[in-house]
């Protein structure tokens, strides 16, 4: 047992449960820090004094430190020495300059929706960016919004809706922050058409790891812009962002049901590559109830879809699918449990996606609210693991089918969420060492493999084994991942190769000499 573990003994073991491999293996083990020994608290007193002298409020109470002890994943635990709530770029700059001087790690957190401990501070300072959440300017003529980086996408949507505008694409999760999303990607069901959230950023204000406040875009300080976008927080803190916006429209939704993955994925790819819909994505219950979601902003686009593409889809309507399922499980009575689960899930989930207060004249309003509330209600848990695979189009079906088998091996129930991501050829430099697979052309495809925890407690070994097996598929097929930081960073060299990683590490060392910014995420 090392000293670092003793330092954090106040945290209770909590979620560590029985291990499926050796049921008694973890009973007498204290929970270990994910990354226990990188920094031992050196210079903290000097650093905190200097910070206070420079007017930065550093909060060290047990209550606030405990508030940030884990992330949405709930499997990595760590407490910072102190918390700074971000208020403005100058304050963030002062913090980072002092952190460089005293070599104190700074972990930046937005919505805290990471699942691999990327936004958990194992000592040092936790910088809570949600304190910077103002909308600074909405330019309806230029169709852009300037906002602070810590704002939640939902809060941004609230302000945009007051002037009948909307953002382009954002994660289907209300509490993702803009800055955090731009750092990792951000996928929406309109990403097949509009790309990932990171690609809608027009310009950024960034505080570099050495404390400079820099404005960057494709035209100004382009190299920094390339590194910060999809950069997993390694090259700066996004304090402001200019994003593209558009007029708000409600959606007309269509659902098609499949009893297998392959045909649904192929149909989705057909729609994506032919620009046949405004929104598309796949949400499954296991691998036997597969829902292809297709939606439209306008009646014209919907009519064109109905005329040209609807006849080519192989999915069923709700009634047709129900009949098919009845036949399937009548012939396989030993799978009655699975059938009952599917039926129960349908009865619970479907009404949630059609709540009357969000439906007007057959159109869905505020889709992010509807989906996000459903996501947290039906998939949320104190423990969440969501390994993913990002692939080029031709490898995607195989990756999903193999990943689905892994899910079945580890968990009784699970969900897959799949979506296409349109790529911007001019943003190729942004995509290096990111969730965009290096061989993807035109579109990349992503699949999240989300086991349903359902109140069970799984050991970290079990969860890690599951994630590793999914990620091994990515290595095998030459893809990438959305969540390759934190506890999954062991895969970075395997999937991207030494040459790329070493080049980025050299850039990181140059930009962040003391390696203080988000040090446990990638390098």
């Amino acid at each position: 047992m090392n000293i670092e573990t003793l330092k954090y003994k106040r945290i209770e073991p909590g979620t560590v449960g029985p291990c499926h491999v050796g049921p008694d293996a973890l009973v007498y083990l204290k929970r270990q820090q994910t990354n226990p020994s990188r920094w031992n608290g050196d210079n903290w007193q000097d650093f905190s004094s200097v910070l206070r002298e420079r007017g930065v409020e550093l909060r060290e109470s047990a209550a606030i430190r405990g508030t940030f002890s884990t992330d949405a994943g709930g499997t990595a635990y760590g407490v910072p020495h102190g918390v700074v709530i971000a208020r403005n770029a100058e304050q963030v700059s002062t913090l980072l300059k002092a952190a460089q001087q005293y070599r104190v790690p700074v972990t930046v957190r937005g919505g805290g929706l990471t699942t691999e401990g990327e936004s958990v501070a194992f000592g040092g300072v936790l910088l809570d960016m949600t304190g910077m959440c103002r909308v600074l300017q909405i330019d309806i003529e230029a169709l852009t919004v300037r906002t602070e980086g810590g704002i939640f996408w939902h809060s941004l949507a609230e302000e945009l809706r007051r002037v009948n505008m909307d953002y382009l694409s954002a994660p289907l999760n209300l509490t993702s922050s803009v800055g955090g999303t731009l750092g990792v990607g951000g996928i929406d069901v309109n990403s097949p058409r509009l790309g990932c959230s990171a690609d809608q950023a027009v310009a950024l204000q960034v505080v570099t790891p050495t404390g400079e406040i820099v404005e960057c875009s494709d035209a100004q300080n382009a190299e920094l812009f390339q590194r910060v976008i999809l950069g997993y927080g390694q090259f700066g803190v996004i304090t402001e962002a200019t994003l593209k916006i558009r007029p708000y429209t409600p959606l007309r939704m269509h659902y098609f049901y499949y009893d297998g993955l392959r045909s649904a994925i192929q149909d989705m790819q057909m729609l994506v590559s032919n620009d046949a819909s405004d929104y598309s994505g796949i949400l499954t219950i296991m691998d036997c109830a597969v829902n292809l979601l297709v939606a439209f902003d306008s009646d014209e686009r919907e009519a064109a879809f109905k005329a040209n593409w609807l006849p080519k889809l192989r999915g069923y309507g709700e009634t047709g699918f129900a009949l098919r399922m009845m036949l399937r499980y009548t012939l396989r009575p030993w799978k009655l449990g699975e059938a009952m689960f599917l039926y129960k899930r349908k009865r619970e989930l479907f009404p949630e996606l059609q709540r009357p207060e969000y439906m007007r004249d057959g159109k869905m309003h505020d889709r992010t609210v509807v989906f996000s509330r459903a996501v947290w209600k039906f998939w949320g848990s104190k423990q969440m693991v969501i390994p993913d695979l990002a692939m080029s189009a031709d490898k995607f079906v195989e990756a999903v089918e193999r990943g689905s088998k892994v899910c079945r091996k580890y968990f009784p129930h699970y969900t897959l969420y799949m979506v296409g991501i349109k790529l911007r050829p001019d943003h190729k430099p942004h995509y290096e060492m990111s969730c965009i697979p290096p061989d993807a052309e035109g579109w990349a495809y992503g699949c999240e493999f989300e086991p349903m925890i359902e109140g069970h407690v799984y050991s970290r070994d079990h969860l890690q084994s599951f994630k590793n097996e999914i990620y091994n598929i990515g290595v095998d097929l030459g893809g990438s991942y959305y969540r390759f930081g934190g506890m999954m960073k062991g895969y970075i060299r395997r999937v991207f190769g030494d040459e790329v990683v070493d080049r980025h590490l050299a850039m990181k060392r140059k930009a962040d000499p003391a390696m203080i910014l988000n040090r446990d995420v990638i390098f």
Partner: protein
Amino acid sequence: MWGFVKNAFTSRRDHADCSGCSLCLLVCPVWRKTRDITLTPHGRSKAMQHGDIDRAAIDHCSLCGACDPVCPEQIDVSGMTLKLRRRLVHPEAPALLARMEEMTAQPITTKHAPAKLLPDQALLDHPEMLSRVTRLLGMPVAEDEGMDIAMALESGVVIPAERMQRFMAPLRGTMRIVVANGLLLKHLKQVLPTKNIVSLGETLSGHEEVRRSLRASDLYVIESRAYHSDYQRLVKYYDGLRVDHGCSFNLDLQRIAIPATVRSLPQRLGAMPHDDDSQARWVLHGRNIARIVVENLEDCIALAKVSNIPVVHLAELAEDGARD
């Protein structure tokens, strides 16, 4: 009766069940005001999971109840805050207990009426508006308004059984109770499950003359505590009002009522001045409206302070309608 039985045996989830999704943060007016996560339901739950919580985090909650319907874990979030307040002896507790003792000792004459109004402090402070409300609804003010009980509920001070009995006695023979204070409304629904207990806002908005006067250019400000305490039903009720009259509401994208005032416990107790301006401005921000219609008089005062368009209480609409 069934509702009471069901509630009594439903296990209420608590801070230990918080998954940290932050959905409560999005609707928390205290978070909007302070941008300090420790003062929010999320912060309180996480701090408690960590074994340490500050009094400030408990006192800051305005008990608007917005966090209750959005919590995917179905934690009784505002109930959790009230439990925490009960565990901390508040400096004002002795004064509140003395006030309740004083009220218990006062004689009471019960007048039988099929319906009674329990006004809130703001209505009691504005007798003209109170009399307009009672005239419009055709019901008397209850003999015991229970303002000390409402404040005790807010502060987490335990209400003596004798005081509660004295408060309830005149209400037992009443079939319909209209309550202006959202917190008292929630409590009464729990202790008198067989009675027809409704909020003042819902009652007034159901009045035909009031409804007729609503316009598409109105911003209708729902009283948040009553709304969130019966969210599943009322979200449909107000959506119906929107469909019928076209007015907009102080609802956010999650269909949660944005309160026009945010008051911490010290502010409610008068130990600190009110500071509602920024919240009231947020309710109005970017809206293209000609008039503000409010259910709650406290909101009326806060919005009138920051707005240059007319702000009217629902009860005032009936007379406007008569003039039209």
